[in-house]
């Protein structure tokens, strides 16, 4: 037995484990044995550690982070704090595991987002699941395979080197009929293994990774069986309806609960700021809520969806320079043409079709919460803090999540509300936000301003680029072109609500910062190309050095047939280049603009993406299509209107999501780059949607639409200034 592997029989071994781990194994029902692999990344070399550095610098912790079990039935279980919200991790993670372990895809069972069964995890966002967690997962699988081979060596009387693995068996390479199954090998043994850095299969040997797989959860989802948080029903459960203020910053002045209290079977709860009515039926709880009389004073901030941009610039922190090259003064001296523009982007909502929902229940002092969340562990900790419980006395279970897009991370208020109410009433409670609550309490993508000053020389080379970003954040702000003199200054982040900046909560929205930054930069580039009198594709290629970017741009151009046809009147072609979560992406689009109404019709969108090795090509394409379709929304229509803390868009009547009739022809291209480990796939293809359409509108009409979304009014206004 090599390395730190410990093998033992039963109890004796378990007593050596730490308390948490011992509990853990108990929860797993270890009877009968199995191989367990912990991902302990504490003693890895620096390079391996950087691989694991995640979003917001959150590192995958040095304690075990995921947990893999080769069961005595030969089935592989993987316990991960990641959750499934439509991005397809439920399909691609088992693919990776099956590949490294040499078992069939069907032999892998994934347990997701359960804080009692799964080790700590930072959360599901930033396209991290495959990019970071996936590597660790494969290493664990490879480690487990090593253990299995050593065990088999004893039985088959062969050194591990002469053994191969296939389909859940270890066999002797020279005489393949001599074999032993994983199930036999793990029988009666409990083996604990900490992870070193075992070798991973080279992509040339992949049989399962790289294959298109249908969504594993599809059957349950087309039959209505798939359970989301709102589908959890417990005996005696009550549904809560919660009193909400009419505006952010409003204060409760008068409250009359008598109307609700008179209703049959209605429980009225007043717990500090939480005022709720509960009933065994949700519609009745809602009716009871309507009986509550509450008066509020609302603040006069003077802030609305128009004045917010001046306000944000006035209160922006000094900021930090996040990238720079050369000397701007020198660059300005070299310029033959200059272009200075200011771009605005509006608040947008996440608007998942499933509103925030949670069910909480107490049993023997332990609180179990089923919630639609992207961050089960931090939500658990928050509930524990609010209820003054130890974290292990709170268990979060994450059923299917009906869309997240960054909006179902922290703070997890609906879960906290359910837990508070369940504790007070001593019965299970479901809190399911209405669509109005969902909009009101959303952590919007922040409104933002980007100011770019730039110039080109007589030969069409960009010579300086001076970029200041207010409140969008850093993602996608560094210039992707080869510019000798440049500077990027970030003033205000997307995630932190600097006091006095946004009038409500803001947070991560699919590809944080990047949608805004790419829109501003690429429209600027398109307009610079016009100043240079160059074709916008030629201009980009002329100014690019990065080979991966050139690769995706050329792939998009080839698919699109760039340059082969001249755009007809009112029609235009756009381009966008972007980088997100390690993935390179280029868009090309054709739009038709009605110059009288200002209405934009998107005819066609081509998107080429280099995301390194592609685990599930079909899954990757679905994410790209989803990004393109969702991106039509923030580009053309989605915008939160508000005044004095009151949100005017509270449902889908005024807040327009992309609809079937908006659907352009969508073509996606995956650029082959097998040697690079898998990169992000859940969000890159959305970053260029504002940009590519704004560039296409500029191409079609000459109108510079300097604010997203490009509503008909804004397009008409821009047309009028030509």
């Amino acid at each position: 037995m090599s390395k730190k592997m410990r093998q033992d029989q039963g109890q004796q071994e378990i007593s050596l484990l730490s308390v948490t781990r011992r509990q853990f194994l108990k929860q797993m029902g270890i009877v009968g044995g199995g191989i367990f692999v912990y991902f302990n990344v504490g003693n890895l070399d620096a390079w391996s550690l950087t691989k694991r550095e995640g979003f917001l610098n959150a590192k995958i912790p040095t304690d075990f982070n995921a947990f893999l079990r080769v069961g005595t039935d030969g089935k592989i279980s993987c316990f991960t704090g990641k959750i499934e919200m439509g991005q397809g991790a439920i399909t691609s993670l088992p693919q990776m595991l099956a590949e490294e372990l040499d078992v069939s895809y069907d032999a892998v069972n994934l347990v997701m987002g359960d804080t009692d069964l799964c080790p700590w995890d930072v959360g599901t966002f930033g396209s991290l699941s495959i990019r970071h967690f996936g590597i660790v997962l494969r290493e664990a699988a490879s480690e487990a395979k090593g253990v299995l081979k050593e065990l088999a060596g004893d039985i088959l009387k062969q050194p591990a080197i002469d053994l191969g693995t296939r389909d859940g068996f270890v066999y002797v390479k020279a005489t393949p009929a001599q074999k032993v199954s994983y199930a036999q090998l793990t029988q009666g043994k409990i083996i604990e293994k900490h992870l070193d850095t075992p070798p991973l299969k080279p992509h040339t040997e992949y049989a399962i990774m790289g294959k298109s797989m249908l969504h594993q959860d599809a059957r349950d989802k087309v039959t209505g069986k798939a359970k989301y948080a709102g589908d959890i029903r417990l005996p005696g459960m009550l549904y809560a309806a919660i009193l909400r203020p009419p505006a952010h910053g409003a204060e409760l002045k008068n409250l009359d609960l008598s109307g609700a209290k008179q209703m049959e079977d209605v429980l009225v709860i007043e717990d500090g700021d939480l005022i709720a009515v509960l009933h065994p039926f949700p519609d009745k709880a809602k009716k009871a809520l309507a009986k509550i009389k509450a008066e509020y004073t609302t603040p006069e901030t003077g802030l609305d969806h128009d004045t917010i941009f001046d306000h944000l610039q006035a209160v922006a922190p000094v900021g930090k320079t996040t990238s720079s090259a050369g000397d701007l003064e020198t660059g300005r001296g070299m310029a033959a043409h200059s272009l200075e523009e200011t771009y605005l982007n509006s608040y947008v909502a996440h608007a998942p079709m499933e509103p925030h929902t949670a069910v909480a229940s107490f049993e023997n002092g332990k609180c179990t919460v089923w919630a639609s969340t992207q961050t089960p562990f931090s939500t658990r900790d928050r509930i524990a803090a609010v209820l003054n419980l130890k974290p292990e006395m709170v268990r979060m279970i994450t059923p299917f999540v009906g869309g997240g897009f960054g909006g179902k991370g922290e703070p997890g208020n609906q879960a906290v509300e359910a837990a508070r109410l369940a504790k007070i009433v001593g019965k299970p409670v479901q809190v399911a936000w209405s669509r109005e609550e969902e909009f009101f309490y959303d952590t919007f993508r922040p409104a933002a301003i980007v100011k770019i000053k730039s110039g080109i020389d007589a030969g069409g080379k960009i010579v300086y680029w001076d970029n200041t970003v207010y409140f969008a954040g850093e993602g996608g702000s560094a210039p992707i072109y080869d510019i000798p003199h440049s500077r990027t200054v970030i003033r205000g982040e997307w995630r932190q609500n600097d006091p006095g900046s946004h009038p409500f909560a803001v947070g991560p929205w699919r590809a944080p910062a990047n949608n805004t930054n790419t829109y501003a930069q690429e429209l600027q580039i398109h307009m610079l190309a016009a100043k240079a009198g160059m074709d916008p594709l030629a201009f980009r290629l002329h100014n690019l050095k990065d080979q991966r970017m050139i690769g995706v741009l050329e792939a998009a151009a080839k698919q699109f047939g760039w340059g082969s046809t001249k755009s007809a009147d009112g029609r235009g072609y756009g381009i966008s280049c972007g980088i997100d979560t390690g993935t390179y992406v280029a868009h090309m689009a054709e739009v038709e603009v009605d110059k009288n109404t200002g209405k934009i019709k998107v005819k066609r969108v081509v998107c080429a993406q280099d995301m390194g090795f592609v685990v599930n090509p079909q899954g990757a394409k679905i994410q790209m299509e989803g990004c393109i379709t969702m991106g039509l929304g923030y580009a053309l229509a989605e915008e939160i209107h508000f005044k004095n803390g009151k949100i005017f868009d509270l449902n889908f009547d005024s807040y327009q999501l992309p609809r079937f009739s908006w659907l352009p022809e969508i073509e996606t291209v995956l650029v082959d780059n097998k040697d690079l480990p898998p990169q992000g796939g859940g969000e890159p293809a959305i970053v260029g949607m504002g940009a590519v359409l704004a560039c296409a509108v500029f191409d079609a009409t000459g109108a510079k639409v300097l604010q997203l979304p490009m509503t008909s009014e804004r397009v008409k206004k821009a047309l009028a200034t030509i």
Partner: protein
Amino acid sequence: MPESIRFTLNAKPVTITAEGDRNLLSVLRTDLGLTGPKFGCGEGICGSCTILLNNEPVRSCQMKVKDVEGASIVTIEGLAKDGALHPLQNAFIAHDALQCGYCTPGMILTAHGFLSHTPNPTREETIAAMEDNLCRCGAHKRIVEAIQDAAKTMKGGQAS
């Protein structure tokens, strides 16, 4: 006042005792324990709560339970026959026409109603029919393809 209301739910007769003005979606999801019809907007805008009422898609969040007295209701749970999925369900799986899946029951049932009137739809007709069903994940392209494909399989609406 609670009253006794009878209807057929997924081919089985049911009787419930409830105030007639109770919200139908709530009754289906709580009193009757279904999980297929989903709450999305509560205002009849998104289509997540779609059910078939006498074979026509309706938005259950906009209905009162007394409105279905004597009617036949089919939810997504009742679409498969004897364990065999409906061609629309198969097509949604085959085309991977879903991501988070929350809009899926409503999409399938809306398409079901549409195909029963328009067995050989053009792409444009399908798009128009689905216009008022919302999907935030952006599965639209594949949903359209799945419906077109299911229509072919159903060859003029035989399987229903």
